[in-house]
């Protein structure tokens, strides 16, 4: 998927509109593919059991997906810069526990403040990740693998084996986890807002485009005057902050928080992002794709019991889906590249 992006970018050099638009169509087709897969899954499942589309079941699905969507958006911001953030599961746990402790100590805390505190905790964790990557000159994979352990360990120390139960949290906060606005759950609205804001910023802001440039070709980005270090810090801070936000949503939705909350989420998030068409080597993909990928993974989880497929198949299906997604990306990219090369040759 990097190839079409690279060819689309220097549009000023060769004003090749048809090629560029064809690339755009194919890119759109990539996201369309996941949407179609999602639609097919929903249709089949509903045909088997119409109650799959009942209000209650859709709401459960939306609540479950909201948290993964928020995480996936943060991960996308990092992955398009050709980095990765493996610490998100631990950051989620830390922020969930921090928010839970705060609400336990001060039950009068308004929900908005709780959201802010969680986001801030996550943002700090992300800033540490970014600073280590930027100033330590070390790969993000290693740094965030390290902080995955460190943040989780800090969380365990802090919790000391205790867990925060639903009856210790203020009812206002728990109500927020299930409350709706015009029939739409708040959690889903927050996730939607995150997707739209991030999608707009990545698409229409200079700094957003620069993230793509960094992922597409790091050295060229430096030569083009992109403030790579600063953008990197921002990308990791955003990812951490969104993981923190997801932690608050987690606490509100489940009501029970212990030190192990969110363990292993990092791989599910990366899976959602990859399935959503964001290339692991950066430079391409959108948060919309990642959000649909997250939605697809969540839907698979809740569709299996309806389809009377053993729940144990879920992991295998997700794995196969990841392989199919990256395989498709590679095939599409290769075909586009070949077609563009042929065109160039024709023009001579």
């Amino acid at each position, binding site marked *: 998927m990097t190839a079409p992006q690279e060819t689309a970018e220097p549009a000023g050099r060769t004003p090749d509109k048809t090629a560029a638009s064809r690339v755009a169509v194919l890119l759109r087709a990539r996201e369309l593919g996941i949407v179609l897969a999602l639609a097919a899954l929903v249709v089949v499942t509903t045909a088997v059991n119409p109650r799959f589309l009942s209000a209650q079941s859709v709401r459960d699905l939306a609540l479950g997906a909201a948290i993964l969507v928020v995480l996936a958006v943060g991960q996308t911001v990092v992955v398009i810069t050709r980095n990765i953030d493996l610490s998100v599961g631990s950051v989620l746990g830390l922020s969930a526990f921090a928010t839970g402790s705060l609400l336990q100590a001060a039950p009068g805390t308004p929900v908005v403040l709780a959201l802010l505190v969680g986001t801030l905790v996550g943002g700090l964790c992300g800033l540490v990740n970014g600073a280590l990557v930027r100033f330590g000159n070390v*790969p993000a994979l290693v740094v965030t693998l390290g902080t995955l352990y460190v943040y989780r*360990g800090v969380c*365990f120390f802090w919790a000391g084996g205790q867990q925060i139960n639903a009856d210790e949290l203020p009812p206002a906060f728990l109500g927020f986890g299930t409350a709706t606005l015009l029939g739409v759950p708040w959690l889903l609205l927050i996730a939607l807002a995150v997707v739209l804001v991030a999608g707009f910023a990545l698409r229409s802001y200079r700094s957003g485009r620069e993230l793509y440039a960094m992922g597409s070709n790091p050295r060229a980005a430096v030569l083009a005057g992109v403030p790579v*270090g600063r953008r990197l810090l921002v990308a990791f801070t955003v990812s951490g902050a969104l993981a923190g936000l997801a932690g608050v949503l987690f606490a509100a939705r489940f009501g029970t928080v212990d030190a192990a909350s969110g363990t292993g989420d990092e791989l599910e998030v990366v899976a959602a992002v990859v399935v959503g068409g964001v290339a*692991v080597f950066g430079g391409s993909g959108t948060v919309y794709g990642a959000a649909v990928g997250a939605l697809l993974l969540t839907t698979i989880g809740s569709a299996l019991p309806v389809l009377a497929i053993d729940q144990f198949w879920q992991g295998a299906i997700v794995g196969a889906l990841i392989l199919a997604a990256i395989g498709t990306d590679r095939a599409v990219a290769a075909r586009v590249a070949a077609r563009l090369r042929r065109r160039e040759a024709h023009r001579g």
Partner: protein
Amino acid sequence: MAERVGNRAVIRRLAGWDRAIIALLVAFLVVAALTVDNFATGRNLSFLVLDLAPILLIALPMTLVVVTGEIDLSVASTLGLSSAVMGAMWQGGLPIETIIPLCLLLGLVLGAVNGLFVTVFGLPSLAVTIGTLALYRGLALVVLGDAAVAQFPGAYTSLVTGRTLGLPNLLLPLLVLSVVFAVVLHATPVGRSLFTMGAGVDAARFAGIRVARTKFWLYVLTGGVSALAGVLWTLRYASARADNGSGLELAVVAAVLLGGVSIFGGRGTLWGVVAGATLLAALQNALRLADVSTEALTVVTGLLLIVSVIAPNAAGAIRSALLRRRGGPTPPAAGEPSDPPPTTSPSVPSTSVRSS
């Protein structure tokens, strides 16, 4: 001449972290033996070796994979699937002598699937093995569900957990395998070619190295060794479960990186990795004996991992700053921000300047 100077500089920089981690290991073992009760006993040694075995075993081929600039995150799932299949076949009444080779064969096949995706289809190994991580673990659940199979023959379980002449049975095979891998990586043309691939795939290809074929067989090897670790794991705990060894991939990668192998490939030593894996296992063991919560271990593991990658870079930056002050030729900085710094190529221009 220039070439040799360059190589020596690279080797010196490498040796820095290796020696540090080995020194750290020795220091830790001495301190633990003196301060932690029951640490330096034969009984504890056998527990230590049993804890170390799966991590070290998988870390050996993983080192070769990482040196070529790739990664395999599916190892723990391969372990789990081989354990689950072992359990299912044992339940099905097959003799253990048939089961074990079949499990190893399964591991080779699983590794070949990874290798196929990475080399033939040319997909990024990180994404492929995250996919097969989910896939293989999922298949393990499909095979065995949440059941556990026990009652493996005592002769085999005690072969894994037992001791001969006071030494744990697994110690000698681990040592031999470590030496074999070290020799292959550091003293054979194949090993050299792995470093070349890690330093630059194109250069390796132009040098006539069969990059794709070698990487494919490395993945097959990693799969096979992971399945072997799965068999040992099952026999050690006398329990086959689908979730055996979950999350072990991170510990293995941590051990490899802690041992000073560059995640970008082209740099690292096998003895560093052996020391790194042993340090992790010894830390875990000592903390458990000292009744320190295992959470402390996760923090220490994470911090060590971060330090292990930052320290060599910091040392390089300081060295180049010193050289600059002395007015000598400036070697390139410890690495460009986001581009994998190939180890040999930066040293070539700088040495050619020096020699001219």
